[in-house]
């Protein structure tokens, strides 16, 4: 009846996961109880859960990403503390638990922290910067989000019901085959990634279509903001790379569920094919994460230097160059496979070549700052911190890309330090900069500067304190994923890293305080004009937060920096552009389709993990029923009357006109 699921699946004898799981469940139930009792459930359902508004979906993605970032950070704390204690001893985490912790850390950080944060910012910003009202397929967008949430939920269920994979975040066979991992851990990994991967793929389809087919009048490709360009590159990579992940996961699933022999040791299976396939997705994935971050840095550095982005066209070219070459370097993740010197040499060279595109970008950012009036607000601090830190990570990466060096450093903590160096500086710093930068646009008030700067300095310090020692330990030969070790030579480096993480804990606390303080002081931090940073792209042309339709009239674009042009004209003429004729606006209606789809996906995924076959059937039939029901709907859109549009637009214009009158000839911020 319940497949492999029994009471023994719950780890009664392990206090740590049980306690953590109980804590999460109590918190979750408490939040639900608070929402229901305070009467906010209808609001939550109407305005958020069923919302197809790209801005709301973006905020929900970002929130999911932050929560999962916290969860992954807890895993990191456990790993660092385990290694600090497990010198010539067993530490406090038994090996099978420790293995789950590092597998969950990697999986969560990449798929359920970094990806939702990136896609969340893309969701919020791209349609605003393109000057349009929503993405191409709003309901699909909501479905994508809820499928990602399904994956995150399944990973968290594994904490309490059953176990998570003990195989590392990419679950290499033959270790991940049924013979060596008979439990449900790998199945949790497979199905949570499969389901959220479908969501990500649909996001890619949605954004390619949005960016290529829906832009404000006059916005040619070479007038799009850099963030839109990088979002386009990332979406193209998603469309081209995620199907490979889907297929690879499907093959491993067939091996585990039906006894196929894709990657097994016997009957002709080829485990290295898995490694090749997974990295054929995995290396583009690196750029899927980092390219939009380069877009964020471009926006921030240009805005806070008060100058257009230096070398915009070369930046576009470098982005698309990286987009293509990212598919030609995958083998550098396993030079030790034994493909031979010629193959390794080719991939070593492509690895060096792809660094050129990033190098171009670094110089462009430096020259954007050169000659500008640089303001060191928090987003800019993150960006400058990134420039310094990322260059170090880039250089260690090029070092690892040299096959002979890689043979020494493969699977060592040097590698671990390298990819944390590029992902933390490249992605986490960018997301922090992006959240700081666009928060006022999303919520109508700025975040507290002082606490923001505290978060930045603590994070920067914490990053160096943790990962520079790991570079050292790696050079001394310490391999990754060690549950315990006996060599005294490594001890000081490991201890240093474990102490360094204290700064990151302080940064996390400061971040929570910043959000709390900013919320309490939201009236004094209010963004009245909708342009808190003296911005240059179209998102600053509308109010903070923007109305549901974003723009009363689609902006007419005449150059690379459309909002800067508008602003300059208004300030030079001391008046805003004349009021246009307002027309009614059609907007897509809310839909619970995404939520319902995710609900049944969660059930189907859980049933597949535990081999509850009848429930799988129920889930699939229900999915088809939802599809038919959704397709049957008659009314897809509602109309916002012209008077309402005019009223909201006049509300936007009034503070701007007042500001213009009070500050003749000045720019805001």
């Amino acid at each position: 009846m319940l497949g492999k699921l029994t009471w023994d699946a719950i780890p009664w004898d392990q206090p740590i996961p049980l306690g953590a799981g109980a804590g999460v469940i109590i918190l979750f139930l408490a939040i639900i109880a608070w929402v229901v009792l305070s009467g906010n459930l209808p609001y939550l359902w109407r305005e958020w859960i069923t919302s197809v508004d790209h801005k709301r979906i973006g905020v929900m993605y970002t929130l999911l990403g932050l929560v999962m970032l916290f969860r992954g950070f807890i895993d990191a704390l456990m790993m660092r503390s385990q290694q600090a204690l497990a010198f010539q001893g067993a530490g406090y985490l038994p090996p099978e638990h420790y293995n789950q912790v590092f597998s969950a850390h990697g999986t969560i950080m990449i798929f359920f922290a970094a990806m939702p944060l990136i896609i969340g910012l893309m969701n919020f910003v791209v349609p605003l910067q393109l000057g349009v009202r929503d993405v191409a397929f709003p309901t699909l967008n909501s479905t994508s989000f809820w499928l990602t949430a399904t994956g995150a939920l399944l990973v968290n269920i594994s904490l309490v019901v059953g176990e998570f994979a003990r195989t590392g975040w990419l679950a290499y066979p033959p270790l991940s085959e049924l013979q060596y991992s008979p439990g449900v851990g790998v199945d949790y990994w497979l199905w949570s990634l499969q389901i959220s991967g479908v969501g990500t793929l649909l996001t890619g389809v949605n954004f390619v279509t949005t960016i290529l087919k829906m832009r404000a009048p006059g916005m040619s490709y070479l007038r799009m903001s850099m963030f839109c360009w990088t979002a386009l590159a990332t979406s193209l990579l998603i469309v081209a790379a995620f199907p490979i992940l889907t297929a690879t996961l499907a093959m491993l699933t067939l091996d585990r569920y039906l006894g196929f022999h894709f990657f097994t040791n016997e009957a002709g299976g080829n485990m290295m094919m898995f490694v090749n396939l997974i990295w054929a997705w995995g290396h583009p994935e690196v750029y899927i994460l980092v390219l939009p971050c380069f877009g964020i840095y471009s926006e921030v550095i240009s805005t806070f230097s008060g100058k257009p982005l230096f070398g915009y066209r070369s930046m576009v070219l470098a982005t698309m160059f990286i987009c293509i070459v990212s598919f030609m370097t995958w083998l550098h993740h396993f030079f030790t496979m034994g493909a031979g010197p010629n193959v390794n040499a080719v991939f070593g060279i492509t690895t060096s070549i792809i660094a050129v595109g990033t190098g171009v970008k670094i110089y462009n950012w430096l020259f954007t700052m050169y000659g500008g009036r640089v303001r060191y607000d928090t987003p800019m601090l993150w960006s400058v911190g990134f420039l310094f830190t990322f260059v170090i990570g880039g250089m260690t990466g090029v070092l690892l890309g040299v096959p002979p060096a890689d043979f020494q450093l493969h699977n060592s903590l040097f590698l671990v330090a390298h990819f944390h160096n590029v992902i933390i500086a490249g992605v986490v710093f960018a997301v922090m900069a992006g959240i700081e930068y666009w928060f006022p646009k999303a919520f109508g008030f700025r975040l507290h500067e002082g606490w923001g700067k505290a978060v930045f300095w603590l994070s920067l310090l914490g990053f160096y304190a943790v990962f520079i020692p790991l570079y050292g330990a790696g050079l001394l030969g310490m391999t990754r994923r060690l549950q315990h070790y006996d060599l005294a030579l490594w001890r000081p480096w490991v201890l240093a890293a474990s102490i360094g993480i204290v700064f990151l804990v302080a940064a996390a606390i400061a971040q929570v305080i910043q959000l709390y303080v900013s919320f309490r002081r939201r009236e004094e931090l209010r963004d009245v004009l909708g342009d808190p940073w003296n911005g240059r792209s179209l998102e600053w042309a509308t109010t903070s937060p923007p109305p549901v339709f974003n723009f009363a009239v689609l902006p007419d674009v005449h150059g690379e920096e459309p909002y800067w042009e508008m602003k300059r004209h208004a300030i030079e003429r001391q008046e805003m552009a004349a009021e246009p004729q307002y027309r009614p606006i059609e907007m897509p209606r809310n839909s619970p389709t995404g939520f319902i789809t995710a609900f049944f996906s969660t059930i189907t995924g859980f049933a597949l993990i535990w081999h509850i076959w009848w429930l799988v059937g129920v889930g699939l039939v229900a999915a088809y029923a939802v599809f038919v029901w959704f397709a049957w709907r008659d009314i897809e859109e509602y109309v916002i009357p012209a008077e309402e549009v005019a009223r909201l637009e006049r509300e936007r214009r009034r503070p701007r006109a007042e500001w213009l009158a009070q500050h003749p000839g000045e720019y805001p911020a």
Partner: protein
Amino acid sequence: MTAVDAFTPLRPDTDPYRLGHGHEAAGLHAHDASGHGEGGPASKRVIVGYGFWIFLLSDIILFSAFFAAYAVLWTATDGGPTGRDLFDPTSVAVETACLLLSSFTCGMSAVATGARSQLWTQVFLVATGLLGAAFLAFEAKDFAGMVAQGAAPQRSAFLSSFFAVVGCHGIHVTTGLLWLGTMMAQVWVKGFRPNILRRLLCFNLFWHVLDIIWIALFTIVYLIGMGR
């Protein structure tokens, strides 16, 4: 304009060096930028069709991963049967004929839809569905026959990859049939509304792409497999 000139030096809008901005650095007006005059968001029909094409491209990449696995594993028969032992040219020819004909009838249904003929649209959609079902029946018979001979996917890596790549196509055809039934009901009840026309367009694209995949399967899996 004097007021403007008064604060011109303060204007932080331009890079004083105008470096890296192509021809705009030469003082040409911004209106000369390439692509000026793009007219805003495309029509819904274009957006839907285009988006669906992008999805189909991703689906083709999904298949390419399975094809790659087949290319790696097709010699890994582990002493078991090979393609030459197993593949039945007659059956594959019939399957191919069914699928290609169904693409033709699918195209005819699009012509009928263009003429807004409820009857002929339904007739050709039914024909498409029947041909698709016939294809699936023959494929199922092939698969059952192979399993009965002991050539199940568990036998060897070659058979694993064969069943996966061909079966993945079969699952797509099955899904297509479910979609087809839904579309027929929608056309029947709701008529040729713009959103239904867009969905028919997507369905047509989907069905033709399944044909393209089949041609690749026919060539790479069956023709080359039978030659060995």
